[in-house]
C-alpha cells in the first residue's frame, strides 16, 4: 500500500500541472452540466403550461401542432438554454480524446526526453512493470474524471429530455454515459504508445492528436459498417406530419431508397446506378420526374436503416468493449516499444 501511495505521489508530482488543469477543466464542464440541468428543470417547473410536452423532443408530437403565441418567448428562451447545454455534451464527446493527448502522450515521452528513462528502467525490476506503475495512477485518475463527466452528461441529457427513456434511446450516443469513459481508455493508451515511440514531448503531443483522431475515425467507420449489417430497414414518409418514434429514438445508420425489388440502396448508390430519386410523393414513394409522378411510375420508397432504441445498452457495451480492447492493444504495443527501446 505504501509503495502504491509512493507511486501515486510520484506520478502526481511528475504531471502536476497537467493533472491540475485537467481537473479544472472537468470540474468546470461538470459544474456547467449540472447547472444547465437544474436550470432547464426549473424552467419547466415554472412554466408548465408552455413547456409541457417539450421534454420529449419530437417524440409523439405531430409536426403541424405549434405552441400558443403567448408561450413563444418562453419557448425561445428554453431552446436557447437547451442549445447551450447541448454544447457541453459535445465537450463530453471530445474529452476522452483530449485526455489521451494531454495525459497519455507525455507519460513516457517526458521520461525519455528528459533523459531519466534509462535510470528509471535500470532501477526497476522490469521495464514492463515500470510502465504499468507509471501509467496506472494517471490512467485511473483520468478515467475517474471521465466517469464523473459521464455521469453528469447523463444527468444533463435526462434534464433536457425528461419524458424519454434514455436507456432505450440513441440520442447523443457517445456523448453521455459509459462510452465517454471507455473511449478514454483507448485514447490514453494510444497517447502513451505514441509518446513511447516518439520519445519527445511536443512531437508526441502533436502526433498523438492526429493518431488518436485517425484511429477513432477508423474505428467509427468500422462500427458503422457493423451497424449497417445489423440494422432494420424501415420506410419513411417525408409527407407525414409525424416522425415515427423509432426514427427519433433509434440510431439511423443510413438513408436511401428501398427499391421495388426490396433492396436498400443509399442515395449515392442510387445515383451511381443511374437512378435519380429527385421527388418524394405520398406514402414515401420516390419518383425520377414530374412526368413519372403523374404517371404513377415510382422507383422505390424513401427508407432508412435504423437500429431501434431498445438496443442502446447493447451497442454502448459493444462499442465500449471495442474502445477498451483498442486501449489494451495500444498498451501492449507500448510495452513492447519500452522493453525494446535502446537507452537514449
Amino acid at each position: 500500500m505504501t509503495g502504491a501511495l509512493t507511486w501515486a505521489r510520484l506520478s502526481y508530482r511528475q504531471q502536476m500541472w497537467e493533472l491540475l488543469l485537467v481537473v479544472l477543466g472537468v470540474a468546470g464542464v461538470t459544474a456547467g452540466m449540472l447547472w444547465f440541468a437544474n436550470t432547464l428543470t426549473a424552467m419547466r417547473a415554472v412554466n408548465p403550461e408552455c413547456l409541457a410536452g417539450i421534454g420529449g423532443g419530437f417524440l409523439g408530437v405531430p409536426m403541424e401542432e405549434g405552441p400558443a403565441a403567448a408561450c413563444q418567448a418562453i419557448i425561445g428562451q428554453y431552446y436557447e438554454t437547451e442549445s447551450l447545454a447541448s454544447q457541453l455534451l459535445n465537450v463530453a464527446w471530445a474529452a476522452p480524446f483530449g485526455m489521451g493527448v494531454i495525459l497519455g502522450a507525455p507519460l513516457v515521452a517526458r521520461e525519455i526526453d528528459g533523459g531519466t528513462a534509462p535510470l528509471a528502467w535500470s532501477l526497476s525490476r522490469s521495464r514492463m512493470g515500470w510502465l504499468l506503475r507509471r501509467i496506472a495512477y494517471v490512467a485511473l485518475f483520468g478515467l475517474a474524471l471521465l466517469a464523473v463527466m459521464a455521469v453528469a452528461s447523463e444527468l444533463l441529457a435526462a434534464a433536457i429530455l425528461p419524458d424519454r427513456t434514455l436507456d432505450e434511446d440513441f440520442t447523443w450516443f457517445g456523448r453521455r454515459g459509459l462510452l465517454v469513459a471507455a473511449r478514454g481508455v483507448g485514447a490514453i493508451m494510444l497517447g502513451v504508445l505514441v509518446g513511447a515511440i516518439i520519445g519527445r514531448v511536443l512531437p508526441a503531443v502533436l502526433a498523438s492528436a492526429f493518431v488518436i483522431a485517425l484511429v477513432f475515425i477508423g474505428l467509427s467507420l468500422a462500427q458503422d459498417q457493423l451497424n449497417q449489417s445489423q440494422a432494420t430497414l424501415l420506410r419513411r414518409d417525408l409527407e407525414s406530419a409525424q416522425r415515427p418514434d423509432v426514427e427519433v429514438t433509434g440510431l439511423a445508420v443510413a438513408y436511401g431508397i428501398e427499391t421495388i425489388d426490396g433492396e436498400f440502396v443509399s442515395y449515392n448508390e442510387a445515383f451511381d446506378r443511374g437512378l435519380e430519386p429527385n421527388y418524394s410523393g405520398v406514402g414515401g414513394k420516390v419518383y425520377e420526374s414530374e412526368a413519372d409522378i403523374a404517371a404513377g411510375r415510382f422507383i422505390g420508397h424513401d427508407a432508412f436503416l435504423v437500429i431501434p432504441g431498445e438496443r442502446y445498452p447493447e451497442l454502448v457495451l459493444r462499442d465500449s468493449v471495442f474502445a477498451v480492447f483498442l486501449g489494451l492493444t495500444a498498451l501492449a504495443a507500448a510495452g513492447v516499444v519500452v522493453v525494446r527501446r535502446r537507452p537514449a
Partner: protein
Amino acid sequence: MTWARLTFRLQPSSIGFVALVCLGLTVLTLNLPSMLAECGSPGAPDNCRVIHLFGSPLGDAVGMTYMAIGLAMYAVPLVLGVPILTSEIERRTAMIAWSLSASRMRWLAWRAGSVLVVGLLLIGVMALAAEWMAAADAPDTDLGFAQHGARGISLMTRAGLMFAASLAVGAVVGRLLPSLLIGLALAVGLSMAVAVLPPYGVEPTELTAAETNGGSPFTTGGAYRAPDGTPISHDEAAAMNMAAFEEYSPDLPPDSVLPQDVSYGIAGSRYFEVLVRESAVLVGATVLVVGIAAAVVQRRRPE
C-alpha cells in the same frame, strides 16, 4: 542561412508541423476553386463525391477550408511560440544561454525573432492563398468584410498576437505542456475577443440596398421602417406583415405596403479603414505582450 538552420535545429518538430499545416492548407486553398468548378460541370468525376462529403454536413468545402485556416491561425503560433522559452527552462539550458549572451533581451530577440520570421513567412503564404480564394469566390465584387480575419493582413495580425501571447505564457509558466494548455485557453479567449471588438470605433451608418446586397458589409444591427419611412419595432413589423398577407391572400402583397428591413453597419468600401484600426490595435497589443514576456525573461530567477 546559419540562423535559419540553427532555428530549425532548435525546434525541428514545431517548425516541421507548422510547415506541413501551412503549406498543406495553402495547396488546398489554391486548388479548391478549380476542383469545385470541375465538380460542378457535367460529367463530374467520381471523386467529387469525396469533396462534397468533405464539406457536408457541416457546410461547403470552402467554408470548411476557411474553418481550418482559422484554427491554424491560432494553432501555428501556439506551437511555435510556447516551446521557445519552455524548452530552454525545462532542460535548464536557459541559464547557460542567458549568461553566454550579451544580454537576455538580445538573446530573446534573436531566439524569438528568428522563429517569428519563419512563422510569419509560412502564415503569410497561407494568408495570401486565402486572400486569393476569397477573391476567386467573388470575382466581380469588392471583397469588403468577406472572410475578415481568415485572410490577408487580418489573419497575420491575429497570428502575431497569438505568437506573442504564447511566448509570454511560456516565459511565465516555464513548462511545455501546461503552457500549451493555457495557451489553448488563451487562443479561445483571443478568438472571442477579436470577434467582438470590430468595428474599432468606426461609426456604423445605415446601409443602402446596394451596400447590403453587394460588397460584403460589416452589419452591426437592423431595424424596420413602415412603408411611409417611420421607424417601427420588430413586433410592429411582424404585425404589419401578417396583416398585409391576410389582406392580399392568396396573392402576394406589393412591396409598397410591407415594412422595410433596414441594416446598419460599415459598408464594404470602408473595409480598409477598419483594417487599419484593427491592425494598429492588434500590433499594439502584440508589442505590449512581447514586452511582458521580455520583462519576465529579464527578471526570471536561475533554475
